[in-house]
């Protein structure tokens, strides 16, 4: 492969998952995951490759992300958020049912963008996702030792325009320029194609924490052409968790005579127990759901057989989209050379056998289903940087795009599974004499009627010359870019003049709102950065104080002159004095003084061990 990594800065690939998120990078040796490898005192940078997509807001407004936030989810559930991806780009009506099982509250005024109440502030889903992204950005920056401000972020292939836009907004709020949104199964195929297969037809079955995607691709000498995609952005491991949780809650209610469902902490503890049992069931024939809470004990064994029976309806929901996808791709099952499994939920044996039955071949499971998407995102980042120039993704739009016409009927402009970028042009006119604007309602989906599809936005064409009805000719161009995001431009055919188009998104943030959040996050980032530097210095200080403490019991310490010992004591006291200040320069200076004062001691100790 022709690779040149020297010309451009670090562009990272990010898998912003429902349950876990990862950041990856590609160099000469290939793509790899960047672990959070900072000092262990830094929350979220604990050496793990997987950063749980959990955010918790402390009493003072401080943001905690990842593993430590997962702990806080138990102890302060009402200030913690998980699976926020399920809320991205959605309205309150869409998620009403599952919100019942979330511990956090939804604030009033959440009709077009959900507002989550955490402590005394509200946050939108893009802001929460931005916190996870910022953690990943930070992990990458520590890894490289330079700022990282460009990223490729993956999204479920079946994400609609609003969900994609929300993800892009999250990137911007986190201080990342999102160079590209890549569909998760496509990213997986890219990583897979790099590794295993150069040519053929490949199906990617991606069942994650909250979303399901199926994509069928044609691989040909470095071209990855998506033939069709399908899915369900509301289907994943979370649904299995919720199902088991409901059962366990009922059990507890009858055994303890207590409704635990109103007790946030209890629910979160039980939820964790349920997830542990679910995960074990992928490897053992039976597992226990165990909960000890306020001196009471609940225990229930779930056998694989029962588990399979319970989750069959959920797994079956993935099969319809698979069949539709095969049909849309215009291939037969026999023509599909491989099936690649992606997402943590594909570890479940029933999922594997269902896929094997449908595709009549054993699916590929040798790639790590948690990591392959992030690795593919890193490959795409290398493509965009120009470092990799023999690979190219040709992706599709998952949903048809249409406009509302008379009687609430949809007129389709761009059909689903069209390769992107894709465009369509339509000419509009006025219906009333002197009319100066035209409103275009754009929807996404496959149904005939507007009300059965997803409303994307209303585009207001303004500044039309006041002419008699039907005389105006406005050419409107709908363009879906390589991210799968729609833009609309309009031109007056008679005058050749460009029209301004005002966008009113049906779900999602306006540009002004995003700008404001970016501004806030900059301020926050500066504050966070300062805090981080202080904490890093304190970690350093802890290390040296501990070392000196130990050395003081060493013979070498007593062999020092009195004034040398006094200098050490003085430097330690001074370090302790500044330890709790917010001035990292000062702490660093005092650490250096301790270093200087203990040079001889260290040398003597070293000599002592050598003799």
């Amino acid at each position, binding site marked *: 492969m022709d690779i040149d990594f020297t010309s451009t800065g670090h562009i990272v690939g990010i898998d912003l998952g429902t349950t876990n998120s990862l950041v990856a990078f590609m160099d000469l040796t290939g793509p790899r995951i960047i672990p959070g490898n900072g000092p262990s005192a830094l929350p979220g940078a604990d050496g793990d490759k997987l950063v749980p997509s959990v955010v918790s807001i402390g009493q003072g407004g401080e943001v905690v992300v990842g593993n430590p936030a997962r702990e806080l989810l138990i102890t302060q559930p009402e200030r913690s958020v998980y699976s926020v991806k399920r809320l991205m780009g959605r309205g309150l009506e869409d998620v009403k049912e599952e919100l019942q099982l979330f511990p956090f509250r939804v604030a009033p005024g959440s009709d077009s963008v959900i507002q989550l109440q955490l402590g005394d502030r509200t946050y939108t889903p893009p802001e929460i996702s931005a916190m996870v992204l910022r953690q990943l950005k930070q992990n990458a920056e520590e890894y490289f030792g330079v700022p990282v401000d460009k990223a490729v972020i993956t999204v479920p292939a079946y994400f609609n325009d609003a969900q994609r836009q929300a993800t892009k907004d999250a990137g911007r709020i986190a201080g990342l320029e999102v160079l*590209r949104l890549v569909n998760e199964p496509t990213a997986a195929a890219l990583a897979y194609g790099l590794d295993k297969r150069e040519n053929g037809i490949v199906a990617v079955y991606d069942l994650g924490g909250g979303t399901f995607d199926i994509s069928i691709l044609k691989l040909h000498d470095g071209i990855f052409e998506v033939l069709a995609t*399908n899915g369900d952005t*509301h289907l994943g491991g979370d649904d299995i968790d919720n199902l088991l949780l409901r059962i366990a809650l009922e059990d507890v209610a009858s055994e303890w005579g207590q409704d635990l469902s109103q007790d946030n902490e209890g629910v979160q503890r039980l939820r964790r127990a349920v997830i542990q049992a679910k995960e074990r069931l992928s490897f053992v024939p039976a597992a226990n759901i165990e909960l000890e809470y306020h001196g009471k004990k609940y225990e229930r064994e779930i056998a694989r057989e029962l588990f399979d029976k319970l989750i069959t309806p959920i797994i079956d929901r993935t099969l319809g989209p698979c069949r*539709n996808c095969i049909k849309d791709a215009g291939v037969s099952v026999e023509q599909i050379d491989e099936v690649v499994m992606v997402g943590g939920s594909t570890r479940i044996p029933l999922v594997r056998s269902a896929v094997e039955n449908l595709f009549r071949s054993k699916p590929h499971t040798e790639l790590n289903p948690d990591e392959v998407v992030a690795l593919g995102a890193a490959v795409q980042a290398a493509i965009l940087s120009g470092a990799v120039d023999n690979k190219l993704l040709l992706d599709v739009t998952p949903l048809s795009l249409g406009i509302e016409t008379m009687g609430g009927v949809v007129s389709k402009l761009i059909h689903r599974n069209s390769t992107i970028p*894709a465009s369509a042009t339509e000419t509009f006119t006025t219906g009333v004499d002197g009319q100066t604007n035209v409103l275009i309602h754009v929807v996404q*989906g496959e*149904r005939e009627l507007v009300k059965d599809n997803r409303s994307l936005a209303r585009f207001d064409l303004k500044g039309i010359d006041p002419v008699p009805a039907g005389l105006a000719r406005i050419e409107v161009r709908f363009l879906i870019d*390589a991210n799968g995001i729609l833009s609309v431009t309009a031109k007056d055919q008679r005058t050749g003049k460009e029209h301004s188009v005002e966008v009113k998104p049906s779900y999602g943030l306006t540009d002004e709102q995003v700008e404001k959040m970016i501004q806030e996050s900059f301020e926050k980032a500066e504050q966070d950065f300062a805090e981080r530097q202080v904490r890093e210095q304190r970690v350093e200080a802890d290390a040296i104080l501990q070392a000196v403490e130990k050395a003081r019991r060493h013979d070498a310490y007593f062999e020092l002159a009195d004034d040398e010992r006094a200098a050490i004591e003085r430097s330690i006291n001074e370090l302790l004095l500044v330890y709790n200040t917010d001035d990292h320069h000062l702490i660093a200076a005092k650490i250096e003084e301790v270093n200087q004062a203990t040079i001889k001691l260290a040398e003597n100790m070293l000599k002592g061990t050598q003799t």
Partner: protein
Amino acid sequence: MTDYYEQLGIPRSLNLSLETLRQRYYELSRQLHPDRFMQKPEAERQRALDLSSALNDAYRTLKDPIRRAQHVLSMEGFEIGEQRSKDVPAELLEEVFELNMALEEMRGGDHSARPQLEQAEKNFTIMLAETDQQLQTLFARYDSSQSRDVLGEIRNLLNRRKYIQNLVSEVERTLSPNPQSSIPAR
């Protein structure tokens, strides 16, 4: 209107090799795709977006034989027109009449019409396949003659095909009222 053949740099023909078309499309995609221009100035990136979306539109049209034929027809100034349900091809009148009765019964909850509908679905699907055969022959005739008369025949056959296609979809919808129609984002 844009000539999609010109855009892909291939000679105009109705019976074209899909493999050659794909190779040409891949080749042009490698040159024009926005991924190739990420490090370039804004104007060049915008140009790549415009050119590659036009390329994708062209490929999408030409790889499908029906849309390909429609494209050639409209370039040659033929009105394709909307096929209305009252324009029943004369030779199908009787069959369509019976089919409509059966569809009415089925929609009214009378499931005894099911076998008849299933048979009709089969018949019309066979008819579709025959139409496609005839189209291929006409395509070949056009490719060797470039004759407008042949295009006229193709136009008529396409209309007939569209009509039958609509019937088949209608029967499918009635037989399984709730197919896997995807509702987005729910």
